[in-house]
């Protein structure tokens, strides 16, 4: 069966450090992968998309990698700030829909 697994439910880090989140998938062959951010009480907001032929994508302090051999994407937040505290969701396309992972909640301590 198809599965999307995000490494841990919660990640606590010190301000200024790099947070690394993992998204592993099985029985998918995605042409791309997306990452979303969700704050409490709000809907998810799109952050980044990486295609299967791209190894890495960056946006400001965010970096995403995509390894189709390992069936894994890594999401990095560098020089983290308390404002980065949120839940981060990975999403894969599947038959005209997006399937989401359960998310990893990141808390950045000042």
């Amino acid at each position, binding site marked *: 069966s198809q599965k999307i697994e995000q490494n841990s439910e919660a990640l606590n880090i010190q301000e200024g450090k790099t947070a690394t989140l993992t998204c592993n998938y099985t029985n998918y062959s995605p*042409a*791309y992968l*997306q990452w979303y951010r969700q704050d409490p*009480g*709000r*809907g*998810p*907001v*799109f952050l980044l*998309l990486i*295609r299967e032929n791209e190894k890495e994508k960056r946006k400001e302090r965010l970096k995403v990698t995509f390894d189709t051999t390992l069936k894994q994407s890594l999401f990095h937040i560098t020089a983290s700030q308390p404002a980065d505290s949120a*839940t981060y*969701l990975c999403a894969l*396309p599947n*038959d*005209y*829909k*997006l*399937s*989401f992972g*359960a*998310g990893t909640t990141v808390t950045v301590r000042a």
Partner: protein
Amino acid sequence: DTAVSQTPKYLVTQMGNDKSIKCEQNLGHDTMYWYKQDSKKFLKIMFSYNNKELIINETVPNRFSPKSPDKAHLNLHINSLELGDSAVYFCASSPRLAGGGDTQYFGPGTRLTVL
């Protein structure tokens, strides 16, 4: 201007009642979705519509009936509400059906509590 709006934001009701949630998008997108996010925060698709046509129905009980009067609106009617329907329901839209890499834009959510 709000891109994807939902009403109401909160809905508290008794078991057995019927309720509706409305969604509107002003982005000019062709595709709209309903998602359910349960207490474990898992976001699961329920329905998608493309140009008012039902595309995806993810084995949702037939007590849930979506209706798309036009491309900009997708409403969700729920009959005979059950305790297990308590969740946050999100509406979303995208320019086209998922598969091409389009971003999905989510509404603020409707928190439904069934007592």
